[in-house]
C-alpha cells in the first residue's frame, strides 16, 4: 500500500530578483491579455507548465522526480545543499505547487520543516503548544487531550506558563519537537530536526521516531547526519541537482553518496593541479614515535612532516612555516631555503627542540616558494591539537606559551632603596 506517490514532479523557479514587478505594468499586461481573451499572468517565480522549459534564467529545483513510498516506511532524503531536498518537501507538504507532475498522499500529512514553526516569542509555552498544534493540523480537542504527554515529553513542565522568549533555544526546540512528535499524522516530514538538543533529548527523539515508525506511520526524513539516517531509515533517496541519483536501501545509497563526496573533496585539492608542487598531508612526530596531529608532550622535541607531490623539478626553493593560534595570532614562524626538489613525492620535515604551548588548537600554514614565486600555500587540515600535558606556566592565566618560570627573592644588603 502506497503512502506517497510522486510522478514526474518538477519545480521551476525564475532566477534573479522576483519582487521587482510593477503594479501598473502588470495591471496593463493583465488587462491586455484579458482583452485578447488570453490567460492573464502575474509575474510569478513559480511558473506554469506551458512556459518554455529551458530558458536560461530558469532554475529547475526539481526535474521529473518520480518515486513511491509504501505506508509505514521511513525514508531519508540526502543530497548536497541545493539538490532539491527542501523543494521536494515543500511540494509534499503543499506549501508550493509543482510546476508539473502530480504528487499523491494518502492520509494526513504533517511537516516540521523548521523547528519552532508557528511559535510566537511573546506567548507562553502552553499557548504555543496549542497554536503550533493547530497550525500543524490538530484539532483543539486533540491538543487538549495530548497536552500532558507533550509537556512530559519536553520535560519543560515548570516553564510551560513562561513566555517562550525567555526559553533557551534548546528548550524551544524540545517543545517544538514534542508537539510535532505527538501529531499522529499518517505521514510525517522531518527536516534537520534531529540536529539539535542535547544527547539525552536526541535519544529520546530517536526512540520516539522508532515508536512512530512501529505504529505504522510513514516518515520522510532529511538530515545531514548520515549516522542518524543509517539508524532510522530503511530506504534512502539521493538527490542531485533536482534529480534522483539513486533510491534504494539506505546502506547502499549512503555508501555511494559518501564515495562520491570523498572523490569530490580530493578532486578539489587536485584543482590546484597545474601547480608544480602541492602539499598533500602532514603529520606530527613527537620524540621517537607518534603519528597523529596531537601534541601530547609540549616539553620535548617534535617535528612536523609535510608530504609534497612534485610535478616538475624545482630549484632555489624556500619553505615558510607558520604556527598561529585560532585567532590567527602568529606564535612561531620560520623560513628555510633549500636547493632543489626532484619530481615525485617528497617529505619536508621541520624539527623543533620543544613546543611549549598551552593546550588548545593551533593553525599550521606552510608555503612553498621558488625564488619569490609562490608554488603552493596550504592551511593544514587537520589542525594541530596540543593536549593538556600538565606542563603549565606557574599560575598562568593568559598567554600562549607554557614555560617553567621561577621566582627568586633576595634581599640586597647594605643599602636602602628608599634613601
Amino acid at each position, binding site marked *: *500500500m502506497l503512502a506517497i506517490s510522486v510522478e514526474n514532479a518538477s519545480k521551476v*523557479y525564475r532566477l534573479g530578483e*522576483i*519582487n521587482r*514587478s*510593477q*503594479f501598473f505594468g*502588470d495591471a496593463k499586461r493583465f488587462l491586455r491579455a484579458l482583452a485578447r481573451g488570453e*490567460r492573464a499572468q*502575474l*509575474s*510569478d*517565480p*513559480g511558473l*506554469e*507548465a506551458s512556459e518554455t522549459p529551458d530558458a536560461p534564467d530558469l532554475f529547475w529545483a526539481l526535474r521529473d522526480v518520480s518515486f513511491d513510498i509504501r505506508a509505514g516506511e521511513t525514508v531519508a532524503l540526502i543530497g548536497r545543499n541545493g539538490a532539491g531536498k527542501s523543494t521536494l518537501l*515543500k*511540494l*509534499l*507538504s*503543499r*506549501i*508550493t*505547487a*509543482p*510546476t*508539473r*507532475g*502530480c*504528487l*499523491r*498522499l*494518502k*492520509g494526513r*500529512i504533517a*511537516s516540521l*520543516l*523548521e523547528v519552532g*514553526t*508557528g511559535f*510566537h516569542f*511573546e*506567548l507562553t509555552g502552553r*499557548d504555543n503548544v*496549542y*497554536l503550533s498544534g*493547530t*497550525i*500543524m*493540523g*490538530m*484539532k*483543539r480537542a486533540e491538543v487538549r487531550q495530548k497536552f500532558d504527554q507533550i509537556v512530559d515529553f519536553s520535560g519543560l513542565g515548570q516553564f510551560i506558563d513562561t513566555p517562550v522568549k525567555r526559553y533557551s533555544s534548546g528548550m524551544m526546540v524540545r517543545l517544538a519537537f514534542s508537539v510535532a512528535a505527538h501529531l499522529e499524522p499518517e505521514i510525517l516530514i522531518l527536516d534537520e530536526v534531529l540536529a539539535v538538543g542535547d544527547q539525552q533529548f536526541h535519544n529520546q527523539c530517536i526512540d520516539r521516531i522508532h515508536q512512530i515508525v512501529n505504529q505504522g506511520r510513514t516518515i520522510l526524513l532529511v538530515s545531514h547526519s548520515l549516522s542518524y539516517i543509517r539508524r532510522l531509515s530503511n530506504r534512502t533517496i539521493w538527490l542531485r541537482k533536482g534529480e534522483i541519483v539513486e533510491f534504494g536501501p539506505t546502506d547502499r545509497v549512503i555508501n555511494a553518496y559518501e564515495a562520491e563526496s570523498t572523490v569530490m573533496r580530493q578532486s578539489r585539492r587536485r584543482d590546484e593541479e597545474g601547480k608544480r608542487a602541492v602539499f598533500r598531508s602532514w603529520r606530527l612526530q613527537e620524540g621517537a614515535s607518534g603519528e597523529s596531529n596531537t601534541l601530547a608532550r609540549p616539553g620535548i622535541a617534535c617535528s612536523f612532516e609535510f608530504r609534497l607531490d612534485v610535478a616538475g623539478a624545482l630549484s632555489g626553493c624556500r619553505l615558510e612555516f607558520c604556527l598561529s593560534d585560532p585567532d590567527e595570532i602568529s606564535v612561531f614562524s620560520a623560513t628555510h631555503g633549500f636547493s632543489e626538489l626532484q619530481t615525485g613525492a617528497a617529505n619536508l620535515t621541520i624539527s623543533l627542540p620543544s613546543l611549549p604551548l598551552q593546550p588548545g588548537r593551533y593553525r599550521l600554514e606552510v608555503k612553498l616558494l621558488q625564488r619569490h614565486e609562490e608554488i603552493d600555500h596550504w592551511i593544514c587540515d587537520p589542525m594541530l591539537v596540543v593536549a593538556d600535558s600538565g606542563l603549565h606556566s606557574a599560575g598562568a592565566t593568559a598567554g600562549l606559551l607554557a614555560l617553567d618560570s621561577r621566582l627568586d627573592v633576595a634581599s640586597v644588603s647594605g643599602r636602602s632603596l628608599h634613601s
Partner: protein
Amino acid sequence: MIEESLITRIEPKKKMSFFEWKEISAYRDLVYYLALRDIQLRYKQTSLGIIWVILQPLVPAVIFAVLFGNFAKLPSNGQPYMLLVFCGLIPWNILNGSISRAGISLVANANLLSKVYFPRIIMPISTLGSVFIDMLVSVGVLAVLMVFFQVPLTLNILMVPVFLVLAFLMGLGVSLIVSSLNVYYRDFSLVVPFALQIWNYTSPVVYSTELIPEKWRWLYALNPTTGLLEGFRWAVLGDAPLNTTMIITTVVFSALLLFIGSMVFRKVERGFADIV
C-alpha cells in the same frame, strides 16, 4: 485500500476554482488560535488593556461631537451628535480594522506561510477575530451611551447584527484583495492607510448624510459605505426613514467585493510561498 477521499492530490495551479469550504472548516480551530494570538499580543503588555479598546472610538466621538456638533452646529437629525458619530465609528472601525489588519496578514506571517500548509484564507479571516472583539466592546459602550442619552429603543435594533455582519463581509472582501495583492506589490501597504483616510472623509462617519446637498445625494449613495453607516444609525437610533437605494448599493457592493476578493485570492494563493 483506503477510500479515494483520503488522498490528497498536489498538482500545478488550476485556472480558477472556489474555496474548499470543507477543508477550511476542518481548520476552524486554527482560526480560533490565530485570532487568540492576535488579541493576546495586542493587549499583552499593555497595563490598561481593554480601556484602550473603549477609548479608541470614544475619544474621537467626543472630539467630533464638540467640534462639529457644538461649534460648527452640523445637522444631526435631532440626535446627540456624539451618538451620531459613535454609531458611524462602529461599522467604520470594523471596515478600517479588518482592511488594515487583514490586509498585511499574509506578508506579516510570511514565515508561517513558507513553512506550513493550511488554507491561506485562514490568515486574513483569523485577523478579523481581534476586530470582532473590538467591535463587541464598542457595542457595549454604545449601549451605555444609549442609556445615558435616554434613546428610546425601537424594533429597528433587531437589524443591528445584520449591518454588523454586512460590515464584516465588506471588510473581508476588500481584505482578500488587498492582502493577496500586497504579497506581490508591497505598494499596497502604503496605499491602504491613505485610501482608507479618503474613504473615511467621503463616508458619513463623523457627519450625517443630511450634510450633503440634496442634488448630490444620488452620487453619494453610490459609496457603498453610505448605506452601511446610515443603515446602522437607523437601526440604533431609529429616526430618519431608510433610503433603500443606499442599502441596495451596500448589499450589492459587499457581495461583489466578496466575490472578486475570493477570485483574486484563489488565483494567487498557491504562489504565496514562492513570493512572500
